[in-house]
């Protein structure tokens, strides 16, 4: 177990390193000359030169990468142009909110997918089956910005139950989390339902029935352990999609998270900030996939055996 975990950890660290280097190089190639961007519009060449020296841009690319990596190791992502504050602080302020939002969205969609998908598979001609089909179709066709806007109008403007945006504790999470979870739900629901349908046909389910095991325990323990594995894989693949949804939702709901920060950074060409955010989100993707692998390992003895 530990050697497998260690190997996967090392692998993930390598991937993160590759991400960091690629982001650094791509930013240098595409962002234009940051000194020119920051200096006053009609600055004299020697002023611009001064800016270049301040940003360390007069050194070789290799040296710059070295000091950048060194900074990262100390948790230093550089200083934001726009906010004149350490990128690390800006990210550390926004990231927990975004993680909370993403976590809530994922928790909602996973619970709905598991409960509704299982019920639909268990009772193919029931209201659950219909509801799961309807919800999947709806989530598929309604983009986050649309559901988000509609929910703001209905629940915030007309009914006044929830705040339309901003961040004021738990109530600000409800609408964006629902909007995001609706967008990631369809795939999860379909995958779980299909997996559950085929699992319920398995001979070992007949065995459980033949020994009088309660039908709920059969579905939600015996079958679910097997049917949830494909869902885990989908979640790993969908993290990118989830992040996209989170960014859109943050903009729609003026939710001060990483997505909104990223948008501000992009608009003001704040490339240290863009760089920091890109690295953090990409690493989040790697970490989530690592976690999913660990969960797999923990749930499925066949994988455990393979690696022992």
């Amino acid at each position, binding site marked *: 177990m530990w050697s497998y975990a260690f190997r996967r950890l090392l692998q993930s660290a390598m991937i993160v390193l590759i991400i960091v280097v690629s982001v650094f190089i791509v930013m240098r190639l595409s962002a234009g000359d940051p000194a020119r961007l920051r200096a006053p519009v009609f600055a004299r060449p020697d002023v611009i030169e001064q800016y270049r020296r301040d940003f360390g841009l007069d050194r070789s690319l290799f040296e710059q990468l070295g000091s950048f990596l060194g900074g990262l190791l100390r948790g230093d992502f550089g200083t934001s142009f726009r906010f004149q504050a350490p990128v690390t602080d800006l990210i550390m302020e926004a990231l927990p909110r975004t993680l909370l939002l993403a976590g809530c969205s994922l928790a909602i969609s996973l619970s709905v997918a598991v409960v509704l998908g299982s019920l639909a598979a268990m009772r193919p001609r029931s209201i659950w089956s219909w509801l799961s089909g309807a919800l999947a179709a709806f989530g598929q066709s309604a983009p986050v910005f649309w559901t988000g806007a509609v929910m703001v109008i209905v629940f915030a403007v007309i009914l006044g139950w929830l705040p339309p945006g901003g961040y004021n504790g738990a109530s600000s999470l409800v609408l964006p989390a629902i909007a995001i979870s609706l967008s990631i739900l369809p795939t999860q629901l379909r995958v779980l339902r299909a997996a559950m349908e085929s699992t319920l046909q*398995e*001979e*070992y*389910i*007949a*065995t*459980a*029935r*033949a*020994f*009088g*095991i*309660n*039908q709920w*325990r059969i579905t939600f323990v*015996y079958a679910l*352990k*097997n049917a949830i594995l494909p869902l885990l894989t989908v979640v790993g693949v969908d993290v990118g999609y989830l992040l996209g949804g989170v960014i859109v939702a943050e903009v729609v709901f003026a939710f001060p998270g990483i997505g909104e920060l990223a948008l501000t950074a992009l608009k003001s060409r704040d490339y240290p900030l863009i760089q920091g955010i890109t690295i953090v989100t990409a690493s989040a993707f790697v970490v989530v996939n690592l976690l999913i692998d660990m969960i797999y390992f923990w*749930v*499925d*003895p*066949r994988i455990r*055996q393979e690696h022992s």
Partner: protein
Amino acid sequence: MSDSPKPVLEVENLSVRFPSQRGEVAVVDGLSFQLRAGESLVIAGESGSGKSMACRTLLGITPDSSRVDADRLDWKGQGLLALDRAGWNALRGAEIAMIFQDPAAALNPLITVETLISDAIRQHRGGTRAEVRARTIEALSRAGFPEPEFRMKAFPGELSGGLRQRVAIALALSCEPSLIIADEATTNLDVSIQAQIVELLRFLQADLGLALIFVTHDLGLAREIGGDLMVMYAGQAVEYGRVPEVLEDPCHPYTRGLLRSAPTMASDRNTPLQPIPGTAPRPGEAAGGAPFRARCPVAMERLCERENPGWTRVSDTHRVACHRFAAEGRGGVQ
């Protein structure tokens, strides 16, 4: 045997039908048999003859698309077909337990041996954690599962085929049922383990007074088990009698063919095996006449095409469903 007067299991005219393009087809068709406590019934027949499906009706676990009918399907005088879900669940495992055909498929890969067996015990017998654990260990050791205290934490995939089979047996024993259905419980095992398992089942039967239904392809094993033998073909019973009677004096051409093709029949050591020519009919194909007619060496052209033979009495305990036998006796089916 006659010391226990009332049979525990009474089956009359049992059939299982599935919808198909050609309308409903029967995969089990008009079975009747009885079983007393401590007695055994061997069901033999080729693959696809409906043995497993017939057994599944006794637990109410035929596929959702199936239709089960019977004039009578009684367990200890209680009609099974009228049971609701709670009624079935009270019976399953506790009164009637099944050892499934293929333990690799019948054991959940993600549930440990301990959880599986304890769940069944908790469902039917209850008790404290320690009691359930003790019962689980007891069932496993009865089934010859080595070092149950340590090894019951294993997942089925971590066990050999023989051990998995023992887990399936332990599960069947765990709630002390009155009837065990062993659906080819030994088919996937090597001969030596096969013999051990048969020995174990016979021992348990004698020890606990179980009724046993033993399903097999292999008539050689029928001799080991004893009791009654029902030979099935295409969902129907074609011959029924005490095991030695049927094996010494097979009266149906299909039973004779089966005996000639069985590798474990000791009497046939010197003669080469003769497989039955042709293939088994698909469900519904054999309807309307004698089910075996297409492959039968002594089929009667008109009669066997048109009419399903009824039972002909051979002795008090032995009967056969064959037009040729009814018309000409043993000489006709030689």
